[in-house]
């Protein structure tokens, strides 16, 4: 579910983090906003639903992560609010100053959210100072360690690339041309960051994660990262935008799954003592509870997927001003 969230909200975060450069004037910015307008809210609900799933499936992980990252999560909340408000309020008044204010709000919210989510992921991969009582003993400043900052930057870059690919699909004219150019640049930066973070991960974890020794087949997943990047470079032609969007989606899925495999079977590894880590065995709800919530949610998820596909279909194709709201 978190992966679905990253792929979906990922592109609207990406659009946000580049909107100031790619979309130069009011009209272009309106086009960029309208491209994500009908879907960003629905995309964000995946985050809420993923949070809910975490409560019921792994109550302890939810409790430890959320209280441990207290300030970071509060910051995430405020950024989500800032971003939502910026998107909705921009169109309310025509004054250029008003619009620039909310464009800036949209940008700040998008970049910082992507960065924070990436930093959080980096810290989880690296391991957290979890004590014997299963709670987190650390400070907000410790979260901003070099490795986590690197994963944070990787996240910003990859999501920005995903966002430009989305704009390539949804726009035309000068905006489209600039999106294509930025997509090429960001592909290079993404490549560099993937290499840097991969090396850093091996250094931080001092060796290959256990999962890859136990199940050699798991190597297929990190290879998908490579596949995503190669597919990306093959889709650089201006007419291959849909393909480019799919390649960045694949890259994100592959990165998320690789991170999950790296820490498997832990959910929150402890750096104090591996014994204190929260893993899928010691923090799951009872099998009965898991089964019930699985059944109850599967039908809902099917409905959601059908509905989201429908919305994406209804609004498919290039954005034209006049039809949109923003």
């Amino acid at each position, binding site marked *: 579910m978190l992966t679905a969230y990253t792929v979906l909200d990922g592109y609207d975060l990406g659009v946000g983090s580049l909107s100031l450069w790619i979309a130069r004037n009011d009209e272009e910015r309106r086009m960029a906003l309208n491209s994500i307008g*009908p879907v960003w*809210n*629905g995309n964000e*609900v995946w985050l*809420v*639903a993923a*949070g*809910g*799933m975490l*409560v*019921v499936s792994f*109550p*302890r992980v*939810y*409790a*430890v*992560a*959320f*209280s*441990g*990252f*207290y*300030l970071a*999560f*509060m910051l995430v*909340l*405020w950024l*989500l*609010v800032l971003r*939502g*408000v910026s998107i*909705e*309020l921009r*169109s*309310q008044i025509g004054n250029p100053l008003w619009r620039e204010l909310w464009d800036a709000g949209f940008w700040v919210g998008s970049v910082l959210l992507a960065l924070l989510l990436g930093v959080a992921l980096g810290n989880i991969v690296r391991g957290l100072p979890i004590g014997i009582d*299963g*709670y*987190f*003993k650390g400070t907000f400043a410790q979260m901003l360690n070099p490795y986590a900052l690197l994963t944070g930057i990787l996240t910003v870059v990859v999501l920005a690339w995903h966002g430009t690919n989305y704009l390539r699909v949804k726009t035309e004219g000068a905006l489209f041309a600039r999106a294509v150019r930025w997509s090429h640049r960001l592909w290079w930066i993404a490549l560099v960051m993937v290499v840097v973070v991969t090396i850093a991960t091996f250094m931080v974890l001092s060796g290959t994660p256990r999962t890859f020794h136990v199940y050699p087949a798991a190597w297929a997943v990190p290879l998908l990262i490579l596949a995503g990047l190669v597919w990306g470079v093959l889709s650089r032609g201006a007419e291959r935008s849909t393909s480019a969007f799919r390649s960045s989606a694949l890259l994100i899925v592959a990165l998320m799954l690789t991170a999950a495999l790296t820490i498997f079977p832990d959910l929150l590894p402890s750096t104090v003592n591996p014994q204190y880590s929260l893993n899928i065995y010691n923090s799951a*709800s*009872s099998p*009965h*509870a898991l089964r*019930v*919530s699985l059944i*109850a*949610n599967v039908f*809902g*998820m099917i*409905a*959601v997927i059908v*509905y989201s596909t429908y*919305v994406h279909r209804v609004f498919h194709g290039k954005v034209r001003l006049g039809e949109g*709201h*923003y």
Partner: protein
Amino acid sequence: MNEAVFAHRIQFAFTVMFHYLFPILTMGLGFFIALFSTLSLITKNKRYAEAASFWARIFAVNFALGVVTGIPLEFEFGTNWSRFSSFGGGVFGQTLPLEGVYAFFLESGFLGMFLAGEKRVGRTLHWISGLGVAGGSLLSGYFIVATNAWMQHPVGYVMDPMGRVQLKSFWAVLLNPYAIWQYAHTINGALLTAAFVIGGIGAFYLLSDRHREFGMLSVKTAVVAGVILSITQLFPTGDLNGASVVRYQPTKLAAMEGLFDTVQGAPLAIIGMPDTQTGKLIDPIYVPQFLSFLAYGNFQATVDGLNSYARELWPPVELTYYCYHIMVGLGTIFIAQMLIGLFLLWRRKLYSSRWFLWMLMLTIPFPFIANEAGWTVAEVGRQPWLVYGLMKTAAGTSANVAAGETIFTTMGFAGIYATLSILFLFLVARIIHRGPQEGAPVHA
């Protein structure tokens, strides 16, 4: 009380009370939108279509604020109440994602289609999406109330060896007897609130002599629905919700009524000030033996007073007592006000009685106050328990989050919410100023 516990409670109370202002209205308005939409389909009268789309626009703004202010609450279970999440997440968490997955998607998806308008999606689909908006918001409310009801009256669980609760029966949690009447009372309150808002804004149009037909339709709908709803708020929903309290939470009942001593044939206090020092109600006005009757249907029944329980098991008596009396007092006013409205409607003076229209307009905030007071009774009256009988509130907080951090972020929330309130009022004022229009774009 420990400073950190207090800080967590203040933060949650503040964010939940601010959030609750929005769903009260969306849950009620959803029903009226579906009603107008149905009437428009049956009668082909354009007035109803106009009303449905006008209220859908107000709904949309409200809904957005409800979502934005609701996300922090889900987070706070983990950030502020981590020991509670760890202890009970496997059970109370069952209903939370369902709200997101079923209700929220239903609500937002259909709202989008409804706002897109009849021309874009076709008449039948438009009507169905109106029903979907109402259904989604009502369903959403149920999942939340069921989650809360588990904390009021935990059911369907077993204790595991580690001292955590594990789910035993999903259906018991979903169909908690406490949830049923708590939900009925809450939804009835939401519908009544929507009726007041519809009537108040309609009255505004009549008083300022704009959109007269729309105003008349709104005021009439509000009065007719309001008479029914203000009475059903008291009986049966309020009465039966009270019966759950009698059965499952005797300390809350005693605090609500300011009853200190256990007596046979307990009187009902209409007015009075509870004094926890002396254990007496100061300057009371009583209806003799009536509390026993309301609680047990028998004038001679014995009702347990607060003194039958250890002092550390008392909820904050004054707060519970006053909020309860504010709620009941306002409820009584609502019944009287709506009956006057019905009388004026019958005498064909409803649209010309300016004093009544003024009253209708100025009482818009009252049902919100009554709802908040009622919710406070439910939550404060449950103290000192977080999960009634199972976990104390002080044991459920995040032990590793300092009071200072919580106070700091509470101030942050206060600032953000103040800004949001201003933006909300600005947006709603714009919609009201534009007035109902046929085929108007949603975000012009």
